[in-house]
């Protein structure tokens, strides 16, 4: 016991001298500290993307790869055969857009309620919001199938109440069902960032606005909403970007129009045996998303500039 204690003391005295040396070079220490994380992220993020880009210049024959660089797959994407993929990208973007609007539009009032109307047990509300997301995502989608289905909760409930004779068919297997399911699936991810932003707003600003004569609606539009923009934008991006690639939900509840660009990419790496084309589609998808997000942030940024003027 004593021996170990001395050893520990010796280590700390030794590292004390070293610490003094370190203290003189803050940048070096900072970079060293962050280097393990950086190396891991670089290796697992940038390297795969580079490999994918390289692969987009190959050709696949059956199960073999021909590695001579060629623009063949890019030509497909830009030619007649590529139209289907652009169409699917468009469809996926639209699905993601409607889902994002639905999620954020529903999440905002809830976040507002939690930030401004709940005075005690705020943490309890946060927990209440997140508990549903402790179940498997797939099971939640399945649960929506059960709710919206032909003899699901809504239909059998309405029939038993005598309000309808035949089950409603428009509840499931269409884009609306996809939007509802996604609006549910991403709720917590949207509520929390907006809530954090709203919570940080200095209440005295709101009081000042009221004192200066603003009604509640005007005060919201001029003070609250602009200040909550960082969180709202974060929520929008956090929902929109992943949803573009989601093909599981549409395939389960979307009906015959449930095919998304994700299905195509997955097929390229599976049955269709055309990984280079899959790589090209992925690269195009990333670029399209990057451009859209860039335009969005630009538009939002400009509006804020105008508001300040």
């Amino acid at each position, binding site marked *: 016991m004593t021996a170990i204690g001395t050893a520990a003391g010796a*280590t*700390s005295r030794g*590292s*004390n001298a070293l*610490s003094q040396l*370190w*203290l003189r070079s*803050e*940048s070096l220490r*900072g*970079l060293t*500290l*962050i280097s393990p*994380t*950086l190396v*891991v*992220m670089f290796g*697992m993020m*940038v390297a*795969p993307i580079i*490999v994918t880009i390289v*692969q987009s210049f190959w050709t696949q024959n059956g199960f073999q790869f021909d590695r001579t660089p060629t623009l063949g797959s890019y030509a497909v994407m830009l030619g007649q055969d590529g139209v289907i993929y652009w169409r699917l990208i468009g469809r996926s973007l639209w699905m993601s857009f409607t889902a994002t609007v639905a999620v954020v539009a*529903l999440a905002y*009032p*809830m976040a507002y*309620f*939690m930030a401004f*109307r709940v005075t005690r047990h*705020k943490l309890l509300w946060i*927990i*209440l919001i997140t*508990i*549903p997301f*402790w*179940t*498997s*995502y*797939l*099971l939640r989608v399945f*649960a*929506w199938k059960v709710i919206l*289905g032909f*003899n699901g*909760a809504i239909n*059998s409930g309405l029939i038993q109440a005598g309000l309808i004779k035949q089950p409603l068919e428009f509840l499931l297997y269409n884009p609306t069902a996809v939007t509802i399911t996604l609006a*549910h699936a991403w709720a917590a991810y949207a509520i929390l960032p907006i*809530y954090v932003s709203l*919570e940080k707003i200095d209440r005295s600003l709101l009081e000042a606005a009221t004192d200066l004569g603003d009604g509640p609606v005007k005060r919201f539009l001029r003070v609250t909403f602009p200040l909550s923009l960082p969180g709202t934008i974060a929520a929008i991006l*956090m929902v929109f*970007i992943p949803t573009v*690639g989601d093909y*599981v939900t549409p395939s389960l509840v979307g009906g015959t129009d449930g095919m998304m660009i*994700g299905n195509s*990419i*997955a097929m390229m*790496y599976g049955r269709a045996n055309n*990984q280079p084309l899959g*790589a090209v589609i*992925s690269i195009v998808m990333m670029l399209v*998303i990057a451009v859209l997000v860039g335009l969005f942030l630009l538009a939002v940024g400009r509006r804020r500039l105008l508001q300040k003027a």
Partner: protein
Amino acid sequence: MHSPTISRLLVTFAVCYLIFLYAPVLLLPLFSFNDNVYPNFPLKGFTLKWYQQMLRDQPLLDALWASARVGIAVSFVSTVLGLFAAKAMTRYSFPGKGTITSLIMLPLVVPSIILGIALLTLVRQVFDLDLSLITVTASHVLICVPLAMLVLMARLEGFDKNLEEASFDLGEGAWRTFWRVTFPLILPGLVSSFLLCFTTSFDEFLLAFFLSGTQPTLPIYIYGLLRFPTKIPGVLAMGSCILMISILVVAFSEWFRRRGIDSQQGSIV
């Protein structure tokens, strides 16, 4: 200051929204006790047989254990890496912070399917490794490190740097300072990071789908069953158990948090 009509509208909305959030989730326990293979209404009768079936379904339990192992490993590694990054970001100034932040946040803005196929290509074509739980773990670390970093940065920014400096001045080394001063104060942040990473990994489907080998994780196993729903009630039983356990875990961590050293009032997590 607050208009009463708007208040009433908000309250009604909040209640309806909670119903919207919980309805699908409460269906899971409901049908897990229902004596019917198909989760349809009308309800047939109360039974515990699906829970028994779940306990006897070895592949289901294997998948559950696989997801748990992956989740713990991912949370551990991500929190440690996130901690290094968060500490570096908040306590030191060095060049290229913006670029580095973007790089670390990058996985959050790339759709999982693209990450999945890119990693798959890297693992199989470049390194010619076999797919396994380790490749799944690696892919999950990729998306969890940014989350961990965000949570821990929020935590580290929130407390006084002087505490650490004081500890240095009193003669403690970097390691001891961390262990005796910083660690207890950021413990709630570490716990949140751990929980956040665990949930993300435990429930993650797409990356695991592309990068798993012989042993499926729980979401992959469930996905397989969803298309052949005769074993669904057992899965519903499993989902209900997970829900129950997570409520208990959250309650426990909340109790733990209140007991621990927490110098912030009204903190968010």
